[in-house]
């Protein structure tokens, strides 16, 4: 054999790779080694297979391709010796993953090794199975694993338990088989087996409600006892971590108890004592203890209500939050977020501390804290919180500004008590971090501005001032330019001065200056420039004296390479030059933008931007009050007895809607600002009937002045349930418009012709009804006629029997089928078909593939 490739040992190769000074050198070493390994594989050299695979794994870790070694793993696994199997299984787990088809070849070896007499070989096989098994392997090998759960050696039992977890994740149906063996693992004394057994039970409970009920009944008591035993156990060196016996087992037990207690008062009751003990007695000066406390708090929060325990839990979180260790503070923030749904008042108490965390130097903590603060904001605290956040915006790091800006804009918009405050805050944000403000946010600002006629002058002057200090912020420039274009006259003659405002002198040419700077500024993009051109056109009509200058500025863009700017420039020039007489009416002030439609549209396209956060359940604490207030208005409008919009009006609404609410609603909406949670939920449900309704309520600020908003909401709500007939009409209309699909000739031979006709039900676009008509082209009679079809997995086929199984000469029979395309609109239908029949007792067979289905099926 060639000495060239048998030469290097594993450590020599690693040394050579480490000695490489450049990436190219390293590549050269690896290339040489790979070549040697390939050659050795081709020679089928057994003695070096072991070493080759070890080298390959190292090369794989460096990120080089090593697929050619995959088969070597299988060969090593199939060999008899333990060392070979050990490295073979390691290679298998490292070089392959569950998606490679090669893996199927190993199923048989795995099965043999799972039945091996050497328990360490069984262990290797279990480990590999647990780490990379696919659904097919899970099905094939589940019985082996089930048997090994009762193996004499605990080492094997624990591995089998984890394997079972993987199998259940892959094929949840198999959980049934594991329920009983898993339950018996809970009685084990060996910690490894107990940990994995508890985990297996947890996993089974997640996938199977019946098993959950079973464990709840049979095992809760035992688990509580085990946890008590472990929590009270004296020092045991083997499992001790920082003075606590086996924190891992603690945590696993608490997790399982959490699942058992959730939604079951009796089970929760049984675990109260031990939870209280763990929560109060666990040492909190080391990470291990805190990990247990953290898990315990989670369990307390999830199981059924127990006031005392909850207080204990919130106190632990409070302690966590004031901890100096960043890790602990991080998990506290995380946990408080979840606690918010349980007890938002308790979380509100920590607001100041959380606000401090937003300013932490650690990005992970900042992010968590900001999200939490965002959920804590309500109309009572929005002013100080927004102030703090905006102040912090000035000093925060670039990476964080985007998140922070988005959150500030959202809370300011949602909870603003009055428009002027909203505009002020938005101006601050725009001048501080305008580049991070999203498109829809500054659009919303403009909509609000147009709807506040008494603030036009104030706003445009404030924007003018801001523009001088921060002209780098693109969105600020845009909003300012837009407002100057609209309200240039108010800017110059100080119209509508507010008391708090300082007077400012702006001449007509100053206004033009500002817009000119914007159009020429290097940071301005096409949108800004286009907006500036419009603003200039508007100014030219408001200030005829500047008309000439404006004309020349607009003219400068005639040669712009950007089509949009060039066109605007040309057209605006001609408006100024040739159409003096209509110019002023052409560029009148924009009509007031309709807030309700805007916010509705916006909510439709960007649901998260307006409604507090992604998780609706979390948004409830500060969403409740908000949602109820506009509702009162809404009810006022619909009922005539306006002064007392209490339960009667709610009932009225219910009656009107004909919705049978199971809740008797004792006080669904009271005039106060604290409606019960249930009541609000019902109302939210009601509102969700009309789709644009919730959005205009969330964007409450926007709808304050828009008179038609509540009415519109009302209409949508009322129309849908009370006017079913009109809905039907609508549907009828649809049915008329059902597209007609052309029929196709699916198949044609010298003897037979098959045509397909398609129909579709409009309410189910995925399903297509096909009528196949078979025509006999010969003068003979076909008997025993049978049509068969096959479709790929994304299609579902249902074949009805054909109208007859014999076809007369030149005759015609029909057969219907229904095809459901789960990839409707993405993939066209495709079908294989086979037709069998007899002519004079002679078998005939025709086959074909049908690819010419209309694409939109």
């Amino acid at each position, binding site marked *: 054999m060639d000495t060239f490739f048998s030469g290097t040992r594993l*450590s020599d190769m*690693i040394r050579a790779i*480490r000695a490489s000074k450049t990436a190219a050198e390293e590549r050269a070493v690896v290339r040489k080694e790979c070549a040697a390994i390939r050659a050795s594989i081709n020679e089928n050299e057994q003695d070096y297979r072991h070493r080759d695979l*070890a080298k390959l*794994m190292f090369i794989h*870790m*460096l*990120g080089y391709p090593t697929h050619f070694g995959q088969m070597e793993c299988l060969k090593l696994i199939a060999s008899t010796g333990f*060392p070979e199997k050990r*490295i073979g299984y390691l290679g298998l787990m*490292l070089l392959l*993953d*569950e*998606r490679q*088809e090669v893996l199927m070849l190993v199923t048989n070896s795995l099965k043999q090794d799972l039945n091996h007499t050497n328990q*360490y070989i069984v*262990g290797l096989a*279990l*480990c590999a199975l*647990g*780490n990379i098994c696919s659904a097919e392997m899970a099905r094939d090998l589940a019985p082996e694993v089930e048997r090994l759960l009762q193996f004499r050696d605990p*080492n094997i039992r*624990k*591995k089998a338990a*984890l*394997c079972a*977890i*993987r199998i259940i*994740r*892959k094929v949840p149906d198999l959980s049934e088989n594991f329920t009983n063996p898993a339950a018996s693992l809970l009685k084990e004394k060996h*910690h*490894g087996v107990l*940990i*994995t057994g508890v*985990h297996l039970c947890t996993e089974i409970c997640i996938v199977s409600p019946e098993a959950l009920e079973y464990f709840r009944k049979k095992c809760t008591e035992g688990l509580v006892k085990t946890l008590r035993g472990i929590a009270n156990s004296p020092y045991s060196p*083997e*499992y001790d971590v920082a003075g606590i016996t*086996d*924190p*891992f*087992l603690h945590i696993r037990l608490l997790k399982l108890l959490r699942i058992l207690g959730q939604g079951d008062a009796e089970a929760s009751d049984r675990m109260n004592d031990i939870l209280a003990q763990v929560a109060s007695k666990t040492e909190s000066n080391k*990470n291990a203890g805190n*990990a247990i406390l*953290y898990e315990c708090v*989670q369990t307390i929060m999830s199981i059924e209500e127990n006031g005392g325990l909850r207080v204990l839990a919130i106190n632990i979180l409070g302690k966590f939050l004031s901890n100096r260790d*960043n*890790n*602990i503070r991080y*998990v506290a923030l995380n946990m408080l977020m979840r606690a918010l749904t349980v007890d938002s008042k308790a979380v509100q108490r920590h607001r100041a501390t959380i606000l401090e965390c937003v300013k932490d*130097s650690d*990005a*992970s*903590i900042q*992010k968590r804290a900001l999200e939490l603060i965002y959920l804590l904001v309500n109309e009572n605290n929005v002013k100080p919180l927004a102030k703090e956040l905006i102040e912090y915006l000035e000093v925060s790091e670039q990476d964080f500004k985007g998140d922070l800006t988005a959150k500030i804009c959202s809370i300011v918009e949602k909870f603003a008590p009055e428009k002027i405050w909203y505009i002020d805050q938005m101006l601050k944000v725009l001048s501080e971090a305008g580049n991070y403000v999203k498109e829809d946010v500054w659009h919303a600002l403009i909509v609000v501005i147009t709807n506040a006629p008494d603030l036009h002058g104030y706003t445009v002057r404030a924007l003018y001032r801001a523009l001088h200090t921060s002209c780098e912020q693109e969105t600020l420039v845009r909003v300012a330019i837009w407002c100057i274009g609209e309200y240039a006259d108010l800017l110059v003659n100080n119209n509508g001065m507010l008391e708090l405002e300082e007077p400012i002198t702006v001449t007509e040419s100053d206004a033009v200056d500002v817009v000119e700077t914007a159009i020429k500024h290097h940071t301005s993009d096409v949108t800004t420039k286009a907006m500036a051109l419009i603003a200039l056109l508007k100014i030219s009509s408001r200030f005829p004296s500047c008309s000439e200058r404006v004309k020349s500025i607009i003219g400068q863009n005639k040669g712009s390479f950007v089509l949009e700017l060039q066109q605007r420039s040309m057209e605006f020039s001609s408006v100024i030059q040739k159409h003096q007489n209509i110019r002023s009416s052409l560029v009148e002030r924009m009509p007031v933008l309709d807030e309700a439609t805007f916010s509705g549209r916006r909510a439709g396209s960007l649901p998260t931007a307006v409604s507090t956060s992604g998780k609706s359940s979390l948004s409830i604490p500060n969403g409740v009050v908000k949602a109820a207030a506009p509702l009162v208005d809404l009810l006022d409008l619909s009922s005539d007895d306006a002064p007392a919009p209490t339960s009667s009006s709610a009932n009225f609404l219910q009656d009107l809607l004909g919705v049978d609410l199971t809740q008797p609603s004792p006080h669904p909406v009271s005039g106060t600002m604290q409606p019960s949670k249930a009541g609000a939920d019902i109302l939210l449900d009601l509102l969700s009937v009309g789709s644009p309704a919730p959005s205009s309520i969330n964007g409450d600020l926007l709808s304050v002045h828009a008179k038609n908003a509540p009415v519109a909401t009302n209409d949508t709500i009322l129309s849908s349930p009370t006017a079913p007939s009109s809905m039907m009409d609508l549907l009828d209309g649809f049915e008329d418009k059902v597209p007609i699909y052309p029929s196709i000739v699916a198949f044609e031979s010298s003897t037979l012709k098959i045509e397909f006709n398609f129909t579709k039900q409009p309410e189910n676009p995925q399903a297509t009804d096909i009528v196949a008509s078979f025509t006999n082209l010969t003068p003979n009679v076909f008997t025993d006629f049978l049509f068969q079809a*096959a479709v*790929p*997995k*994304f299609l579902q086929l249902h074949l009805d029997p054909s109208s007859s199984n014999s076809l007369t000469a030149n005759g015609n029979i029909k057969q219907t089928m229904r095809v459901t395309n789960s990839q409707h609109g993405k993939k066209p239908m495709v079908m*294989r078909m086979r037709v069998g029949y007899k002519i004079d007792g002679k078998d005939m*067979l025709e086959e074909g593939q049908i690819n010419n289905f209309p694409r939109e099926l």
Partner: protein
Amino acid sequence: RKLFFSSLLRIGSFISFFWSFVLRCAPSLNYEIMIHFVLLVSRQGKVRLTKWYSPYTQKERSKVIRELSGVILNRGPKLCNFVEWRGYKVVYKRYASLYFCMCIDQEDNELEVLEIIHHYVEILDRYFGSVCELDLIFNFHKAYYILDELLIAGELQESSKKTVARIISAQDQMVEAAKEEAGSISNIIAQATK
């Protein structure tokens, strides 16, 4: 008839292609797992160990490694040990020149994972006798064997360091015994053929 089934097979391969596509689009989203992967990176960004418990393609793996080492190696010393990354959390801890990273879900217990990392390091330390990066480079397979005794399917398997050490040494002895046996057999053969 043959042609028919060969075409059916073709559809079959088309289907399996389709499924593999679906899996690739959504790695690890279809079920819950505690630790998605374990990653050991040196301070210079060299990978010393990777173990994937959720399916990732080779391409995704190198991308993950590149992204994460960029984030983690650049974090300051006094910050918390958690990084939020693509909707997951990565718990990391630095021991001398090595960063031990484990990726978990948002809801998992970060503090416990920190404890698992420490558990692993202590076992390595006992096995190698005050472990250093070089031990893990030249005996990388040993590091994997130990990890396999600690975690399976991304879940903790054993909380006793002593038990892990015992099982590893029993297996090491089996390897040694097999080597000796092979050595003695080849000696006998060599002598017999002399």
